[in-house]
């Protein structure tokens, strides 16, 4: 627990200097205006002011911790009146009796001390108000700093997530190998090369235009993966055999955009990339009142699986499902050692 006064050397200096000035002014007033002797003037000033400096210091904890609940209007005023009453009373009586015990014989001074009581209380109240205002300002400033820092962190997190999403959408192997195929086709089949460039552009445009929260129809999603698979078909030829089975009644279902592509990409990566034979990628879909269920399956070579755990593509799907539907049980992955199954359950009603 640190107070702002102790948090920086510079604040501590200001605190001391301010109180020193007050002590000097106070003592000077008593000495020159009220004809109190020098010793009494200085002692009076030091006792009253240093005790308040100490009380004010502890006031920070009251403000910081007791009033942190942010009570409103009347409550706040009432609390402050209570705290002020207690602090000023303690401060005044301790100072008062300290001075009486220090100068028991000086009747003129004791008379003055007695008469000045209302002024002392008013000064105490004034000090209290100044303290509270300064402390509130510091708290407000700290809060603002914290908010700004937090906001900055959040922004960089969002950026990172976006970047990761982008990276996982566009696999560099896919991109460069596809461009290599285009390069080859420009020599042998320029018409096919053009078709492939257009498909590749459409695919990239679709990937870049979707954000993490956007949804689209299953029909759009299906068109996108069809483009993707057409491109891959040029590279892999007969090794890639895509068998879709999507009833038209599923087409209008709303699903997160780019949710299918990572599943198909995984099927290609683990199935087709690692196989010299034909690999069937089956996509099926059914719909009921609550969910549209999409199922992707492919054979894979268990000896070829290199990485443990889930790749960035699946993690991304899970993150987005959690973000949009607040559920983490919508993607199910299952493999029996030969065939890999991914099942995606998309709720038809989106939570608010």
């Amino acid at each position, binding site marked *: 627990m640190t107070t702002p006064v102790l948090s920086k050397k510079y604040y501590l200096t200001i605190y001391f200097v301010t109180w020193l000035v007050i002590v000097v002014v106070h003592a000077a007033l008593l000495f020159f205006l009220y004809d109190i002797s020098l010793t009494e003037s200085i002692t009076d000033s030091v006792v009253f002011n240093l005790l308040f400096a100490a009380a004010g210091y502890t006031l920070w904890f009251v403000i910081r911790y007791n009033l942190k609940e942010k009570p409103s209007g009347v409550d706040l005023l009432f609390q402050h009146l209570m705290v002020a009453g207690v602090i000023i009373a303690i401060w005044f009586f301790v100072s008062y009796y300290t001075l009486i015990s220090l100068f028991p014989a000086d009747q003129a001074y004791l008379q003055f001390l007695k008469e000045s009581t209302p002024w002392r209380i008013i000064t105490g109240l004034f000090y209290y108000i100044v303290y509270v205002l300064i402390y509130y300002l510091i708290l407000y400033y700290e809060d603002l700093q914290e908010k700004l820092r937090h906001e900055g962190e959040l922004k960089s997190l969002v950026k990172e997530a976006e970047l990761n999403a982008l990276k996982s959408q566009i696999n560099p192997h896919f991109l460069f190998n596809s461009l290599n195929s*285009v390069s*080859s*086709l420009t*020599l042998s089949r320029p018409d096919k090369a053009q078709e492939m460039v257009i498909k590749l552009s459409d695919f990239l445009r679709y990937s870049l235009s979707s954000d993490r929260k956007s949804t689209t129809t299953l029909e759009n999603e299906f068109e996108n993966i069809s483009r993707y698979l057409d491109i891959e078909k040029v590279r892999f030829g007969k090794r890639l055999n895509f068998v879709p089975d999507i009833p038209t009644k599923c087409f209008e279902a709303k699903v997160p955009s780019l949710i299918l592509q990572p599943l198909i990409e995984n099927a290609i990566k683990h199935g087709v990339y*690692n196989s010299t034979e034909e690999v069937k990628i089956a996509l099926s879909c059914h719909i009921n009142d609550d969910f549209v269920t999409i199922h992707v399956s492919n054979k894979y070579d268990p000896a070829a699986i290199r990485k443990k755990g889930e790749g960035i593509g699946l993690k991304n799907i899970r993150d987005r499902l959690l973000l949009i539907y607040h559920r983490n049980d919508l993607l199910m992955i299952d493999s029996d050692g030969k065939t890999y199954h991914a099942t995606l359950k998309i709720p038809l009603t989106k939570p608010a």
Partner: protein
Amino acid sequence: MEKIKIVIIEDEAPARDLIKAYLSEESDIEILAECENGFDGIKAISKHHPDLVFLDVQMPKLTGFEMLELLDEYPQIIFTTAYDQYAIKAFELNATDYLMKPFSKERFLKALTKAKSKISKKILEEDNVKNLVTKVKEQADTIHRIFVKTGSRIDVIPVSEIIRIDAQDDYVEIVTKSKSYLKKETMNFLEKNLPKTNFIRVHRSSIINSDYMDKIEKYGKESYLVVLKDGSRINVSKSRIKELKTTLGI
């Protein structure tokens, strides 16, 4: 003049077509084989003894590097790759020529000219390629399969089937449920790259797969034996007992 014999090993048809198209105007070469995978590549190399091979790094079943390890002879090699930062680092360390897909005809011909001049000067690539393979292996992740070449036969052993591995001079003996294989490999490499969850080097000359472990027997004062499911009894060296126990969680 004798023509330069070329083999193309590349799993994607358009990529093979492109190399053939770029080579079509060259009169001093002949393409002897086009292979879709590394297994066919090994066969083609041992059959045709090419001077130059275009080799794709990423291929199914057997990658370009895994294929190189199984070769008996080393022709000039021009690697092709779409995206592989590790491989590129290794190529550069070994001054091996490689083409980044997609590559221009100009870049392709430059690589070809360089290879031709090495071939005409009869500069042997063997050490270079072996070095490269070692470098790539050093960076390798955990391995999940081991290739063993016996004569012209290549066996792929999934590591999950390995019961134990014993050191045999320059070779290792890999024992599975059904067979045992000899491969030129080091125990240190296997210790480092087999999955650490179940492969434990219990002795300077033995690595065991804890999935096939029956029990640990104590004999003598501080000596232990591991008994495996195939009945074999493996000595555990004193210094490795602790490691074995931590891996097994006992």
